[in-house]
Each structure stands twice: as structure tokens, then as C-alpha cells.
């Protein structure tokens, strides 16, 4: 930004806000963040008060059931939007689940984060022991070699990532980019599987961002992924797997 351009922005905006009318500024100060009140769909008596949504599989049909442990709420929320939840009690067991998915998809190559990036030591080795190979997502930034290399990666059926956090209310996995943590592993492929340690579950996006603001700009990208890619553009009819993965699996790892 040139100094002149910045000064212009300051002047124009500064002049405007001095005369504008901004109703509604009362209420909790946004900087003293309080997590919003519990967004439960059940009343005090525990009776489900949610009406049935028009579209099967929309988020709103999930019975959120406050008071349940986070992992149960996470499972209910993700399953309600057609995500699949697996449970594993060891890294080896997680590897078996991934191998099972790869077998179903008829592939031996997986687009994946590195072991260190996932903070799941031994997972890669356990996958290799099961005959799977990990594909390096290195792509030339420019030139004619780039599109075919990208197309190669996009042709892989399965992507594997870790997760920096999970959101119980919404069934979301939160992924920060970084070395060994490619965005493509959760984006280009038709099926994405994320390994989420149970102790990384928090309640919601607002609690995460209020308590872990440091995650936001830790890498060039932080994304909360809430179920499979979807659209309802045509007649509000739900359809999955538009641009991102049409299938999302989360392996809850009890570490």
C-alpha cells in the first residue's frame, strides 16, 4: 500500500465515521468475549424441540443434546450432515481404518500430511506396513508441468490429514496449513479422512476463536471443514461433492 493510498483511506473513512449514525452499540463488549449461550436444541426437560427440516441431512436436523460429552455431540453433528465418524484407541488402529478406506476405494496411494505435521508418530510407517504409499504433494508453481501434476494429484481417491481442533456443536475439523500440511489433501480428493485426537475437541467455532486466536494466522490458511462439500443452488436441492470432497471421514483418536 503506498503511503498516499493509506492516507487517503484514513481520511475518507475517518471523516465518514465522525458523522455516521451507528445504533445498537450497547450490549456485551465484543472484546470481552463471552461464549454465546448454549445453542441446545433441547429444552430443560431434555425434550427435543427442534422442528424437522425440509431437507434430510441438513445440519439443523442434528439433535445437539447439550450435556453429552463432546465426542458424542461431535458424532451426532457430523453424522447429521452425512459425515462418517470412526473411533480408534491407537495410532495402529487408525492406520487400519485408513487402510480399509483405501482398499474400498481401490487405491494404494494416499495424498497425505507428513507424520510430524499430524503429530501422530508412526502413522505413516503403519500405513506403509499395510502396503500403502504416501504421495508427496509437491507441485511446480509455474510452467507447463504444473497442470498435469495437479491433475495427477486430483486423480488420487483419498486424502489424509490430522486436525488441530474439532468442533463438537458442528462436527467440524479445523486444519491449519504449514510445512507438511498441504491444503490439497483435504481439498482436491473425492474422499478426505482426518485423524482428530479427542482431547482437541472444543465446543464451537466461537469458543475456538476466542481461546485460540493464535491459530488464525499460524499458517497462510486456517479452515474449519464441516462435512462434505455441498450445494443447494438448484431448487434448494442438496447435492454433495461439488468442488471439495464428497465424502468426509473423521477418526476420533483416544490418545
Amino acid at each position, binding site marked *: 500500500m503506498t503511503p498516499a493510498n493509506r492516507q487517503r483511506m484514513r481520511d475518507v473513512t475517518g471523516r465518514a465515521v465522525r458523522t455516521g449514525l451507528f445504533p445498537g452499540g450497547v450490549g456485551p463488549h465484543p472484546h470481552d468475549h463471552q461464549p*454465546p449461550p448454549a445453542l441446545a436444541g433441547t429444552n430443560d426437560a431434555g425434550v427435543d424441540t427442534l422442528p424437522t427440516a425440509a431437507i434430510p441431512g441438513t445440519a439443523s436436523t442434528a439433535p445437539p443434546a447439550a450435556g453429552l460429552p463432546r465426542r458424542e455431540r461431535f458424532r451426532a453433528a457430523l453424522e447429521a450432515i452425512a459425515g462418517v465418524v470412526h473411533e480408534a484407541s491407537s495410532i495402529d488402529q487408525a492406520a487400519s481404518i485408513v487402510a480399509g478406506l483405501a482398499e474400498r476405494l481401490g487405491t494404494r496411494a494416499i495424498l497425505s500430511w507428513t507424520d510430524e505435521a499430524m503429530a501422530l508418530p508412526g502413522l505413516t510407517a503403519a500405513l506403509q506396513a499395510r502396503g500403502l504409499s504416501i504421495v508427496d504433494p509437491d507441485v511446480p508453481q509455474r510452467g507447463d508441468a504444473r497442470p498435469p501434476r495437479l491433475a495427477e494429484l486430483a486423480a488420487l481417491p483419498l486424502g489424509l490429514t490430522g486436525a488441530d481442533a474439532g468442533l463438537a456443536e458442528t462436527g467440524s475439523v479445523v486444519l491449519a496449513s504449514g510445512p507438511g500440511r498441504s491444503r490439497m489433501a483435504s481439498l482436491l480428493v473425492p474422499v478426505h479422512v482426518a485423524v482428530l485426537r479427542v482431547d482437541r475437541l472444543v465446543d464451537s467455532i466461537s469458543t475456538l476463536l476466542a481461546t485460540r486466536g493464535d491459530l*488464525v494466522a499460524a499458517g497462510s490458511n486456517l479452515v474449519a471443514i464441516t462435512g462434505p462439500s455441498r450445494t443447494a443452488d438448484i*431448487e434448494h436441492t442438496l447435492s454433495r461433492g461439488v468442488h471439495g470432497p464428497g465424502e468426509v471421514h473423521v477418526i476420533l483418536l483416544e490418545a
Partner: protein
Amino acid sequence: MNAVDVPFYRRVEDALTKTRMRQAVRHTSGRAMESRRAAIAELDSSDAIRDQARAIRSRTLAALDQHLDTFATNVEKNGGTVFFAETGEDAVEYIRRLARDRGIRTIVKGKSMVSEEIELNPVLELDGFEVVETDLGEYIVQLDGDKPSHIVAPILHKTKEDCARVFKEKLGASDEDVAGVPQMTQLARRTLRKAFLKADMGITGVNFGVAETGSVTICTNEGNGRLSSSLPRVYVAMMGMERLVPTAADLGVMLEVLGRSGTGQRLTVYSNILSGPRRPGEADGPEEFHVVIVDNGRSKVLASELAEILYCIRCGACLYACPVYQQIGGHAYGSVYSGPVGSVLSPALAGIRAFHDLPHASTLCGACREVCPVRIDIPRMLLRLRAEGVEAGESPQWVSLGMKVLGWLGTRPRMFNLAGRVAARAAGLAASDGWIRELPLHLSGWTASRDFPAPAKESFQERWAKRHGGAS
């Protein structure tokens, strides 16, 4: 942003004859409202979060100069570039020059209302760049040479048969390709993948900028926003200057209300936060990261009594809820921004003369204010703009003349009573069975589709005088 030449009432009449379009709008609005209602039910137990969201918007805008400054500093700290565009032309020129300098060939675009507002695509296409809209709805709009009719659901006005026709005509799709919505979705995925893989520039809109981290957030369900901002080597975010929140904590609150209110989801599928170009060691992400902050009339609105309309987070709920929008669809508004929010925003941004009819496209029922996740008082501003229209001389001559006559009569009780009696007699002659079927001249519009009740034989004053036997 330009108004179309056809007068508003003609556009409405035209829209009302499009039975198929109206069915599509009503059908889809109904379904959208239903799923939305279910998601909002979770929030309705407490309006506190909406108050909190409103307070965030209010406080941010009241100190927007400081927040923008912080934002720009932090985007640059992350390695990004910021440009403040005072006009739409400035923004278009910046992007066009950037694309030329970097030798760009193919541009993929995520959904951006600002880019529609400043009419970016035609300029880039004229310059020979291949520009591809990648949101499914926007893609169909682009293929069909049509315009979006809803800020969140661009093809609300199209049936699935309309979409099938577009794919067959423009892409040569087979019957199997368009057999159903899932098949059309897969067809679009296959076609647009090719564009994503070769694109060297990505452009998206911004849902929220975060000042303290210098980040931009884009919320999509399809994943096209993520692809557009991750694969091409140059990325440009186009952000309306008001679209900021101060902190990450504030962003959390806004994301909670946006998904629920916009599409009836607790959270959009991809809540995607971008902080600068790819970092050393990262395998993907753009080499260059540009944020274009667009004013284009916003600072003028910010300085006015209408600043509250800039609280809007573009969820589209007020469109679905509006009885007028449900009848006429988005195109009749003749502006990029339609529905209740558009009826305020369009004249506020482009001037009352360009859109003086739109503030009248409302019954003032208040449904928009009721559903708004940040509780914007849209009816208040519609009334304010109606008054502005009159002050600007945009009301028809016969209306202002009529008002003058009424004002003159109203301050002269005898004349007022006399005129009342004359009008009642005359109306009585025109009526049959207590109803007037046809009013003369300019008033004929009223009786075009309904009858007008004949006035009572005696006026209120006459009855009052009779009952109390005294002077009126």
C-alpha cells in the same frame, strides 16, 4: 452500479407475468425458509447472540478508520498487498493491471457481490482474459448470459429444467448428464476442475476481514472459494470496506450467525481463513496475496443516517422473508442487491435518483427486520429514503400536487367538509353495491386488480354532530 432504464413498475408487471420464474422463487424461498427456521430455532431460545453480533457490527463501523488501518498493517505483515479503491473503476483498473503485469491467462472466480457491483467480469473479458465463475449458481448464470437474482442463491429464479437446458445448449451435455441435480453437479465439477487446474489467478469476495490478524474469511459450501484461493499463483480478495471485524473472537460470533441465517446450517462447510501468501515450506497457497478494499459509495453511506445498512453480513434471509421479493423475484429490482436490503443499499450507494422506486417496493411489514441476524432496522431506512425521494423531486407530479391540495384543505375545516361531501356524492354515483369498480385517471391503478369501497353516505363529522345534537 447502474440502474436499468425500464421503470420499476414495468419491471414488476413483467415479472408478474413470468409464472415459471415466480413458481421457482416461491418454491425455493419456501424450502429455504423452512430449513432456516429449523436452524434459527436453536438460536431463538436466546436472542443474545444476535445482540452480540449487532454490537460487534456497530462498534466496528464506529471506529472503522482505525480498524482498516490495523487491518492493512497486518495484511502487509503477513506478506500481502493492500489497495484502497475509492471507486469501482479504481478497483477494476487495479485488478486488470495486475493481471496484465503478471501475464495471467485464466482467472477463476469465487462468488463476489462486490465484483458484480463494480462490473469486473466484462472488463477482464474484453481484455482477453478467460474468466470463469466457479460457484455452481454463478457458473450457470454466466453460461446463460443471465444475472444472479439472490445474493446467496443466484439462480433462485431458475428451475432444474432451466439449468438442464443451459448445460445442454452451452456445454453440449447429454440427457444423462442432466438427468438430475446430482448429475448436473458432477458435470459442473468435471468442467470446472479443468479451469481450476490451469488458472493462474483466483478472485473471491470476502465475508469478513479480521483486523488484528490481517486475515480474510470466505465461507462457501462447495469448496470453490478454497480452490480459488489455494491453487492459482496470484490471489485477489475483493472486500467491501465495511466488511471487517476487529478480532478473531468477533469472527467466531459472526460465523455462528452467518451459516444459520444464510442457509440454515450451523456453519458453512468451509469457513476458510486466509492470512497472506504461502509461507516458506508450505506446499500450496498463492505466491501473491492482494486485498482490494472497495469504497464505491460506502464511505458516503457510512457518514449518513443509513450507516446501519452496512451492518449487513449478506446472509440473504431478508430476501426469503420478504412478501414482495417472493412475488417479483430478484431481477425486478434492477440492481445487484435486491430484496429489502437491496432496496436500501442500492439507492444508498448509487444515489436516490437512480433507485428512487425501490424504497417503495415494501409493505413495511417488518419481516426483514425480524429475521435479520444483526437486527438491521430496514423499515426505518426505507421510510427515510422515501422522504429523500420526495425531497429530490422524484415523486410523480400528480402525487405532490395532490398532497398540496390536501394540505390546503386540511387547514380549512369548512372547505375540508365541503370537499368531503362532494367527493362522497360523486363516489356514490360511481359505486354499485357499495363498491367502485373503476377509478378515473391516475387512480385507475388501484382498481386494476381490486375494487375500492364506496365512502359512507354520511361522514364521521356528520354522524358525530347528529348523535350529540350539537355543533361539530
